């Protein structure tokens, strides 16, 4: 799990580590073999700042505005490129989307019906952390480095330094690795993915996001849920451009990108600062498959950890006796595995049993709109006037159906 830092070096004789008196900042010079071990005699000296090997760097900016394309390229770089020899700063913006963390429940974290009605993309990252709203007013930054060189604080420091060098604004980093504006308003949220040898740390930077839509999208209509999924931490957010109108996607990418390169003595050239189509199969063979996988319903929704919902609906009366309806449902891997209804009116006991029998027979479907519609149609057919059910039950059955459907209104 932790391919430990400097494993290559750790087996070397101690005397191969020497203090370099000529270096400023107490940098250490290590005499190391080339990383491949193939040329054991071919030793070279590498200057290491903070005992880290400085790999070459490249800035990549996505030309696509689709969240899935950029996430796919990020995943591709993480899986296929040797990040110990070259580190990437990958930046992109995308059209409005809701993006949840790897182990989250998007239905619980966001307003999925609203997002769907507005045509927003709903995505899931491979990294941890909470749910965020993105639009073109948000810069996404991803630092892809070897696992040994994974250091969130370093990446955040770099961005804060680059931005505050250029603009006169007050940015700080809190202990949750959020970047705060004026020590109060969150302008950036962090997440990371760590593999055996590779890693990426990505975060948002809000410069001119639609904050009203952000708020609405991140408020879930789901009620009565219990879930073990990772929870998001809501925060008061603000846009950088409110403080400094010059801050835009282009000014941020060039400022931060140049700073990232300058740290290892590089300049922005067409080779080190590239605008790329993330779905270019010639350069990134297999990337479209990743993009396709990220768009599947199974990854976006069914990956949600198991959850259950318990709702109580009151205010119904039958034969002038008030009653309530309790709906309990459980979801596993995106499928409704159990659905129970309890009607606390003795007069409706038989109907209660009939409905529960129906629910047992007809649950098990994946929580997609078309499946809920099919369930509804079958229910209406089963409990209609034309069926052999007692006629006075039909209107009560429809009320109970409404309760069931209300319990699923987060879809």
């Amino acid at each position: 799990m932790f391919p430990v830092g400097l494993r290559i070096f750790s087996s070397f004789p101690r005397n191969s580590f020497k203090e370099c008196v000529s270096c400023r900042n107490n940098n250490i010079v290590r005499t190391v073999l080339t990383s491949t071990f193939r040329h054991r005699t071919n030793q070279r000296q590498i200057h290491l700042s903070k005992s880290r090997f400085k790999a070459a760097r490249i800035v990549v900016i996505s030309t696509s505005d689709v969240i899935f394309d950029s996430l796919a390229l990020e995943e591709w770089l993480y899986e296929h490129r040797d990040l110990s020899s070259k580190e990437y700063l990958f930046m992109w913006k995308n059209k409005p989307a809701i993006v949840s963390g790897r182990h989250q429940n998007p239905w619980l974290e966001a307003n999925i019906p609203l997002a769907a009605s507005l045509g927003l993309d709903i995505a899931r990252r491979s990294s941890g952390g909470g749910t965020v709203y993105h639009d073109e007013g948000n810069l996404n930054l991803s630092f892809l480095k070897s696992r040994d060189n994974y250091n969130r604080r370093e990446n955040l420091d770099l961005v804060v330094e680059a931005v505050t060098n250029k603009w006169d604004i007050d940015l700080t980093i809190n202990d949750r690795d959020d970047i705060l504006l004026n020590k109060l308003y969150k302008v950036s949220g962090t997440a990371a993915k760590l593999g055996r040898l590779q890693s990426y740390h990505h975060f948002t930077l809000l410069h001119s996001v639609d904050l009203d839509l952000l708020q609405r999208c991140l408020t879930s209509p789901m009620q009565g849920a219990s879930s073990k999924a990772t929870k998001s931490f809501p925060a008061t957010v603000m846009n950088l451009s409110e403080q400094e109108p010059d801050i835009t996607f282009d000014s941020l990418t060039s400022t931060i990108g140049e700073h990232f390169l300058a740290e290892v003595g590089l300049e922005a050239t067409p080779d080190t600062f590239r605008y790329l189509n993330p779905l270019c199969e010639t350069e990134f063979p297999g990337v479209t498959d990743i993009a396709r996988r990220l768009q599947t319903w199974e990854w976006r929704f069914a990956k949600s950890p198991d959850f259950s919902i318990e709702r109580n609906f009151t205010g119904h009366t039958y034969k002038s006796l008030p009653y309530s309806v309790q709906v309990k449902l459980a979801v596993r891997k995106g499928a409704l595995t159990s659905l129970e209804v309890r009607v606390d009116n003795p007069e409706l006991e038989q109907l209660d049993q009939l409905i529960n029998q129906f629910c047992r027979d007809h649950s098990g479907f994946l929580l997609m709109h078309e499946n809920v519609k099919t369930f509804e149609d079958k229910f209406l057919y089963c409990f209609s006037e034309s069926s052999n059910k007692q006629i006075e039950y039909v209107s009560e059955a429809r009320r109970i159906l409404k309760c069931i459907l209300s319990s699923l209104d987060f879809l």
Partner: protein
Amino acid sequence: MAASFARRAVFPTYRCLNGLTRYRQNVCHARYLSLSKNLQASQWFSKDHEWVTIDGQKGTVGISMYAQEKLGEIVYVELPEIGTKLDTEDVAGCLESVKAASDIVNPVPGTVTEVNGKLSDQPALVNSEPMKGGWLYKMDLKAGLKTDDLMDSAAYEEYLKSCD
């Protein structure tokens, strides 16, 4: 007993995990002792900071104290499906802690037979008892398993000194 001791002194015995015994010269004494002492249930560590306890053909996998300290509070544990065949260094699952999703790197080849169900309710067990109650999954180990790339606890302790 004496005879067996004498024979072993000449040819230090290395017992493979499949129960076969073979003679191996030039095995360092300390390693030989720790192997024979823990033959019934031996615990090994990988360089990726997973541990595996090997008892016959059964293996139990978890992460080390050092690994859990590095990760911080674990909020979600994603474990492999029962029946999954895993090779060494395959990604077996994922641990989420303070916004980071970290791969669980499988230390020995085998087939997953059981996962620690407690971790869905109490993921932080991996932090509080990484070597006991916070185990991750159990496996049927592949026959003829070798532990050459793994470390015993003394070697792992030594390895940790080079980790920070």
